[in-house]
């Protein structure tokens, strides 16, 4: 299968240390200083699926106003991807994760 085409195209290099994150189980290589949104959209991933009908979404306003770029931490925390910087070892999901021990 053809690898997904990235939405974002980087035109200015980042000089910070590399950071590796996991998104829905896939490994994403990023650079410290990247927002989560730019790390994901540069890598070919999209951000989330709409709660109604599941259509793909990849953020919209990019300035913390529209909230259309939420992703989720393993602990159930909601993260606004456009204004949150990546950290090395971050584990993220497109959908809220069931809490461990919270289900049979």
């Amino acid at each position, binding site marked *: 299968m053809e690898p997904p085409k990235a939405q*974002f195209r*980087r035109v*200015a*290099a980042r000089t*910070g240390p590399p950071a590796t994150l996991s998104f829905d189980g896939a490994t994403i290589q990023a650079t410290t*200083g990247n927002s989560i949104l730019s790390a994901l959209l540069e890598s070919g991933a999209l951000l989330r699926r709409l709660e109604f009908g599941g259509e793909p979404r990849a953020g919209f306003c990019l300035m913390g106003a*529209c909230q259309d770029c939420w992703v989720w931490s393993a*602990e159930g925390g909601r993260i606004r991807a456009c204004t949150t910087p990546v950290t090395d070892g971050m584990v993220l999901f497109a959908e809220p994760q069931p809490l461990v021990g919270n289900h049979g």
Partner: protein
Amino acid sequence: MADIVIIGAGPAGISAAEVLSARGLRPILIDEGARAGGQGYRRPADDLALDMNRLMGSEAQKYASLHRRFEALATRIDYRPRTLVWAIDGNTLHLLRDGRAETLSFDRLLIASGAMDRIAPLSGWTLPGVFTLGGAQVALKDQGCLIGSRVAFLGSSPLLALAAKQYRDMGAEIAVIADTTPFSAKATALPTLLRAPRTLFRGLWYMGTALRAGTKLLHGVTPIAIEGTSRVEALVLRDDQRRERRFACDAVALGYGLKPETQLADLAGASFAYDPDFRLHLPVIDGMGRARPGLYLAGDGVRIGGADAAEASGALAAHAILSDLGHAQDIEATRGLARQVGRLRDFQRGLARAFAWPKAQIAALPDDVMLCRCENVTVGEVRAAMAKDLGPVEVNRVKAMTRCGMGRCQGRVCGPALQEIVAAKAGGDGAAAGRLRGQAPVKPIALAAAGDAA
């Protein structure tokens, strides 16, 4: 000493802090961003190899000067970055700072909350690859990224040509710059626009640059759809000769000018009045920015005026605070600032005609177009709710019935278009539709803030 709190660290907030600091006061400057500068004069992180002089072009000196002035000020004020004000209750601000909730009381509050893009929906606008015009610039300035490789710029704004120039300079292909306002409306607005010739000529220069670079620059278009299966593949529109045209692209930047972020002013008790030029409900202020005793509003967060007007109106509001605290008023400086703010805001009124909000196009949108991208409410669902017996024809009641405007963005994105759909049914201008009220929290926050990942 009175506690003065300024919300927003763009040009208005910074210049207000500067004026207060020069009189020996130490304001608290709250910034939702990580670095001062606001959206327009956003400062990239030190580790991003981006040539801001080249990107900012004719505004590079102003951009550099604002940041130099902020640095000189930083130790003389209480600057609090990464801090969200999510509610205002009497004289108490509710803050969220690094995931922790705090409160802060104030005696005087200056809100300089800035603006965001005004958006008109069209078929396909929720596809990945469609971003706001301001967002396209933020992606570049803040992240060093283009939103796509071949980008279409759609809306009605002088910023379409500016952003397209920045994108072309950084290596993007420009599929088209498509403006919904006819060229004739731009010519008609010329006398008002001549009140700020520097800004006018900068705008014309951007358009000229686009044409010289061979970019297609269309006026008077009717957007039809953004096409694509799971990503943006093309923008389809009708040009001013009624010909249908399709522009292949992998991203669309969408913007119909800016609209003030007035939610905090609403919670702080400002009253609002409908402005027929901008077709927006705007906070009522006096000539210096006073909204009520102890509350001051400045910058694009109260009237769109651009960075220069924001800077002057921030200083002007700071002079109002000083005067209200019993300091001797610097009458000459105040008059000069008031003249400058008035002139630049009049210019924006001219721009609002030259780059008009396409109210008729919105009122005529097909029923199947998504109106509320948060709650998945179509134009047709809103029309159906209004058509029922005793159906609501006021935006807050339509919101209660349909959930349009009730989602995560709290109507920031769909609100202006919802107004036009409701106004078309109410049979009046935008004022007839009513005003979407602000609600706390102004942005979603976790109930257990400590549970958020850092």
